[in-house]
């Protein structure tokens, strides 16, 4: 007979033989509330309903988990960020509270972040804030270019003033669509890298939530003219690292490598090579009695 698939909390626990299911029912590993499916069935049905039809004993009605095959999944669900409570708080207070919490207290915020609830809330926050802040940056750019054409972006420096403004307004209009696609692609790549490094202890939704809340909150720093986007980039990366570390319960280095790996693979390997050369030189220095000491300033 084909194996029986068991699911709990919208996640598959795996497929098991009848003998394993029988043993699981006896030990309390599986309960009547768990969903079951076997080849030939059109949909999942509760194990409590199917067990007698398969000649198995009735599973216990309550969820008494002795062994959880997915220990990292579905633990406690927090109450952060405030954005997900915007119906009670109001739109703008919820945005301000979320930005403040993510940027100033990333560790506590992501440790208490809701792990479930769908992708719509973080996606809306990300697209709303990022598109608005992109529009602010574009307006700064247009104002600066009007004052002095030197400030025009290099790609648009040879175009006429009208074409430049049309291009900027066009990018503001298409930016929400680009942000929707980029949120999924960047989260997907980060989650894959985290999985490769053995640091993804939670599902994709957790990574997606961290990336959306951290990046969108940091994009608010675009309000600072000139250096705002650079500060936002660095602060955003810091918040993502802390967020992944707390939400996935992984080590900081895995989170750091996971978000820098795509960048390193694409065009940034020279940084890695420089770092490796630095370490190599230091090691060589040790071999020759240590690196020369820099003079101490009074």
């Amino acid at each position, binding site marked *: 007979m084909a194996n029986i698939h068991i699911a709990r909390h*919208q*996640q598959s626990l795996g*497929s098991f033989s009848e003998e394993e299911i029988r043993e699981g029912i006896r030990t309390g590993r599986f309960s009547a509330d768990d969903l079951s499916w076997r080849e030939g069935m059109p949909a999942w049905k509760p194990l409590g309903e199917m067990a007698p039809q398969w000649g198995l004993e009735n599973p216990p009605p309550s969820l008494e988990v002795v062994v959880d095959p997915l220990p990292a999944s579905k633990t406690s669900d927090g109450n952060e960020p405030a954005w997900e409570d915007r119906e009670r708080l109001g739109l703008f207070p919820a945005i301000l509270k979320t930005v403040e919490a993510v940027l100033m207290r990333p560790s506590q915020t992501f440790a208490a972040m809701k792990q479930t609830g769908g992708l719509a809330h973080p996606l809306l926050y990300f697209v709303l804030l990022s598109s608005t802040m992109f529009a602010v940056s574009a307006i700064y750019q247009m104002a600066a270019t009007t004052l002095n054409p030197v400030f025009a972006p290099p790609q648009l420096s040879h175009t006429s003033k009208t074409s430049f403004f049309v291009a900027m307004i066009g990018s503001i209009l298409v930016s929400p669509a680009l942000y929707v696609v980029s949120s999924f692609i960047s989260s*997907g790549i980060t989650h894959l890298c985290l999985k*490769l490094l053995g640091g993804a202890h939670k599902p994709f939704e957790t990574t997606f939530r961290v990336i959306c809340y951290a990046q969108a909150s940091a994009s608010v720093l675009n309000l600072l003219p000139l250096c705002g986007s650079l500060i936002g980039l660095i602060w955003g990366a810091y918040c993502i690292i802390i967020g992944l570390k707390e939400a996935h319960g992984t080590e900081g280095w895995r989170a750091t490598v996971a978000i820098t790996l795509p960048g390193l693979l*694409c*065009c940034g*390997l*020279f940084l890695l090579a420089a770092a490796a050369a630095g370490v190599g030189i230091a090691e060589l220095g040790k071999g020759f009695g240590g690196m020369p000491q820099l003079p101490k300033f009074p």
Partner: protein
Amino acid sequence: MRPCIRPLIPGEPDNELLWGSVLAAGSLIAVTWLSLGLPTPLCPLHSLTGIPCPTCGITRGLGCLLHGNIAAAFLFNPLCMAILFAVLLYLLYATIVVIGGFPRLRWIPSSTHIPGLLRIAVVLLFAANWIYLILRERNLFPSG
């Protein structure tokens, strides 16, 4: 880890719908971008050192694909083009199962972690592809 075909668990995220939409939108944006001749980013590593980065050649490869020259596209960056073809296959699969409401292909994990062998294989694939790109830059392989 082994494959199985099963219906979606009630409440389970519909990955095919989600990722199919994202990849379709991403492909549409990329094709539109290239067709309009909009500026594409230059590789800083290649500009500074003359050494291609592991993802160099994607834009040129995509350009070849748009002109129907598949062989030349693969020569520009074999691994990235293979990934791109895998994405197209996934898009086709996702479209069929979402529209037809069919059961989904899922992998039954033996544990929640990726096996070490798979990690090594991924690293080796990236390394081999990068070595090829560097050698190709030195004209040791035919160019597209």
